[in-house]
């Protein structure tokens, strides 16, 4: 099997492959890629819902409205051009996340209190 080790990082996709400000005014020009985050109701976090293409932030917000809120999915929209999203490297996963495994004392269930103690 022909294995290619190139990794395309989400948001770090090479400019010529997609996203980014594409080469100017070619007739086949590709509008940059944006990530869309939507707050579904007041009080909740914005959540990543998907991507789309737009020439600028204003259009990206409108496109997000037209594409991602047709079924009353949201009340607030964030957009960010995909190339500005930097992601952690999965190869770092062990060093990043596993050290948290043995910190059980950070969780409330670690503490065994008598039943008489209320409201804690």
């Amino acid at each position, binding site marked *: 099997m022909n294995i290619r080790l190139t990794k395309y990082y989400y948001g770090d996709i090479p400019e010529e492959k997609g996203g980014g400000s594409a080469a100017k005014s070619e007739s086949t020009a590709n509008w940059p890629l944006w990530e869309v985050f939507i707050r579904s109701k007041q009080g909740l976090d914005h959540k990543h819902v998907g991507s789309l293409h737009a020439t600028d932030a204003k259009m990206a917000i409108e496109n997000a409205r037209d*594409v991602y809120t047709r079924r009353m999915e949201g009340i607030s929209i964030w957009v960010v051009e995909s190339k500005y999203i930097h992601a952690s490297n999965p190869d770092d996963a062990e060093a990043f996340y596993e050290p948290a495994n043995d910190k059980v004392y950070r969780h409330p269930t670690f503490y065994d209190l008598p039943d008489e103690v209320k409201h804690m």
Partner: protein
Amino acid sequence: MSVQELEKIFQQKIDQEIKIEPKDWMPDAYRKTLVRQISQHAHSEIIGMLPEGNWITRAPSLKRKAILLAKVQDEAGHGLYLYAATETLGTSREQTLDDLHSGKAKYSSIFNYPTLTWGDIGAIGWLVDGAAILNQVMLCRTSYGPYSRANIRICKEESFHQRQGFDILMVLSQGTPEQKAICQDAINRWWWPSLMMFGPKDGESTHSEQSTIWKIKRKSNDELRQQFVNMIAEQVKILGMTLPDADLKFNPATKNYDFGEIDWNEFWNVVKGNGPCNKQRLETRRKAHADGAWVRAAAEAHSEKRKARAAQKVA
């Protein structure tokens, strides 16, 4: 780490039902298979807009017009979600579209059949969307995260598509004699092509085995097809219509409906481009894309100008 080790870790994740995400290491062939499959799926949504889109201006009531318009629009959205999923694999939408327009990429052959009557809009919703949904429900559990999430969103939106199709046929089946004839005719023409949507028989499908190991696909073509036949063979009774297959019969031993042989000659011919509408569909999409080129370029040029002006102001 050696490639062999990476592959081993990759397959372990798949076996443990851990989703693969864009930044994770993946074998090149896995990436290629996904790009091929997801872009075919995306193209099918986009080309699929055309046969139904035909009837938006002719829908027989204002309510039906609104429903159909919303439905065809949903398909544009589905195409969009799927193109975005291929972009997470490093293939731009433009590239993917170029492959469609050049004829290199395939899409579901079902959309190379014409919509002749209003009954066809019902039959597409009921049979074609019905078949697509079975596939997409399976694909919600596919191993690649972005593809799985796109399918979850699609399934959520698509749940009304099949119902509206059945509803169209229900009304036709209870209507005038002419409407009943329209209904039966549409079912007759769409039944076999719908069965073909599940692809070649197991064993003749070139990509199936590896896709199953990678959990891109989780059910075989024949399994899904049988599930579909069982479902439709019951539903058609409610319409008081028949499916055009003399061999269709419930088999108490297997608890499945046995059905007749698919015309594979027709299947392969449509795949190869000889379907009734292959040329027309592709030409329509090429034209839409070409006609839109000046619009896309203008929007981009304007955006650049605006940025330049803003920069000038700051300076």
